[in-house]
């Protein structure tokens, strides 16, 4: 027992002795990668033919030229890139084309927390739906409930957020007690529906990963030793089997961050939530390029931060793994 504790301790020490340096590198890489990604977007934006002011309303070429000069779009692309980089490093991100004289940073500061909270809640709710379902399916795979859950979760993969959001709203509106009629309660219910519709595709993916990880845990060499300990079944499953799945679960959640932020565009549009997705969709419709580039910086930074967190979390969850391997 003492030996196993020592092994566990040395493993943790080894993990943490490497991590601070790697952590610093990863933290330093976030702004650079976000900046490089936006450079790529900037390049794409300049490669495709068209202009933010080439709309049906602006038919007069003189007006268009004046607008382009006012926003600095008549300059060469490298000069525009340099100007935009200066604005990014000064933290202003420039001015919006759509909302006149409003700095992009102010718009992002309003929208970003809403999307972050929505995405975080969706990840938590999606995992809370998926993990018990996966345990149920792996424990009794032949049961009717397990078969139903498996089919249901597979079906959820084919229901994107722009389908699930109006569908959930339709379901709630059709129940006899009209929950949406009361302004306060209705707002709360709508927010809950927004979180639920965003969490359904997450639940489907996490369910698959958890099932795979749990089946691998059941086939592992240490599982018979755990089973021989005559521990309560709930403890065996929730502490040891699921504990060994933590690295895979956190690893599966990280790539979902980008999908969550993409799916948030439809959800925030349907439920009129003033988030980053709503801002991006509106900016795309109005060809508001500074807002789109600023939002891309936010999205890339968020995705990279979530991936960093997901890489760190298995260290916290190594308790279950360490215990299991020390048996």
């Amino acid at each position: 027992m003492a030996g196993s504790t020592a092994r566990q301790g040395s493993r943790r020490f080894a993990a943490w002795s490497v991590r601070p340096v790697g952590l610093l590198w990863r933290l330093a890489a976030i702004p650079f990668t976000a900046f490089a990604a936006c450079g790529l977007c900037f390049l794409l934006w300049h490669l495709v033919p068209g202009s933010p002011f080439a709309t049906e309303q602006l038919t007069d070429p003189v007006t268009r030229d004046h607008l382009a000069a006012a926003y600095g779009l008549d300059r060469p692309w490298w000069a525009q890139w340099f100007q935009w980089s200066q604005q990014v490093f000064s933290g202003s991100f420039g001015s919006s084309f759509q909302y006149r004289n409003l700095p992009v940073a102010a718009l992002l500061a309003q929208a970003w927390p809403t999307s972050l909270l929505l995405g975080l809640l969706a990840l938590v709710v999606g995992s809370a739906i998926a993990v018990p379902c996966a345990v149920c399916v792996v424990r009794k795979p032949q049961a009717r409930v397990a078969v139903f859950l498996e089919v249901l979760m597979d079906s959820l993969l084919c229901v994107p957020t722009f389908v699930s959001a109006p569908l959930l709203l339709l379901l709630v509106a059709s129940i006899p007690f009209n929950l949406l009629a009361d302004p306060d309660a209705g707002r709360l219910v709508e927010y809950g529906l927004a979180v639920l519709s965003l969490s359904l595709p997450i639940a489907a993916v996490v369910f698959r990963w958890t099932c795979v990880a749990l089946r691998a845990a059941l086939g592992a060499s240490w599982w018979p030793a755990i089973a021989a300990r005559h521990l309560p079944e709930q403890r065996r499953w929730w502490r040891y089997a699921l504990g060994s799945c933590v690295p895979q679960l956190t690893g599966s959640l990280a790539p979902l961050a980008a999908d969550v932020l993409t799916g948030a565009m439809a959800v925030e549009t349907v439920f009129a939530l003033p988030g980053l997705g709503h801002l991006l969709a509106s900016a795309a419709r109005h060809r508001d390029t500074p807002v789109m580039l600023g939002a891309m910086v936010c999205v890339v930074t968020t995705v990279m931060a979530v991936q960093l967190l997901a890489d760190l979390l298995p260290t916290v969850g190594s308790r279950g793994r360490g215990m299991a391997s020390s048996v």
Partner: protein
Amino acid sequence: MTRKLALFLVVLAVAGPLGSSGDGYAVDWRALDSPPGALYGFAGGHWLGTDELGRDLWVRLCLGLRGSIAVGVFALLFAALLGSTLGVAMGILRGVAGGLVARAADILAALPVTLLALVVISTSGRGLWPVAATLGALGAVPVARAVRVALLAATRAPYLAVARIHGAGFWEVARWTYVPAVAAACGTACRLLLPQLLVAEGLLGFLGLSIPAPGITLGSLLAEGSGRLSHAPWAVAAPTAAVFLLLTATRSRA
């Protein structure tokens, strides 16, 4: 089963409107927001109901399915062509140039396709070809990466040395080794890519950034219907089912 479902949806998209009297744009003033089968029964006209302008929803659904499948398929073809070409170039290029192209592809692959498509489409404009070309160009990145890996693995296969000893030339080796490896990798990557392209197109259509009116896609039908949920829930139910079936057919094939 899924192949039959995909075939059924394609037939529906092509031939579905033929059996109906309306063209999907004709306004029937006697049937504004008419529920399914309410006006002429299920055997008569407007059996799936109408929208707020009295336009036949069945025909519009088939046209929307046609628009979504068209964008998805054209984007996939473009992604396959561009991805294969880029992948082969990345596999042949060595040194700094090859490394730089591969890293650029890695960065692009890490970014969400729909968000990048938003940036590009907002400047290039909406329409079948701009949307298909944008989604195809962005979808080409995973295809190119898969093709590059397959080509590199094929060029390093140990049996190639034996083939060369036996006198096989470059074109013979390419015909029996490289081309099948590239085709297999491209096919697998495209199967995985198709549902992603359909979802991205649906989301763009829902946000009003895919084919502009009077063109119809499933996303635009859903957006129209979700604005009138309390008045005409059937306008959302039909496109929802169509999107579900389309993704089921393509995801299961993947």
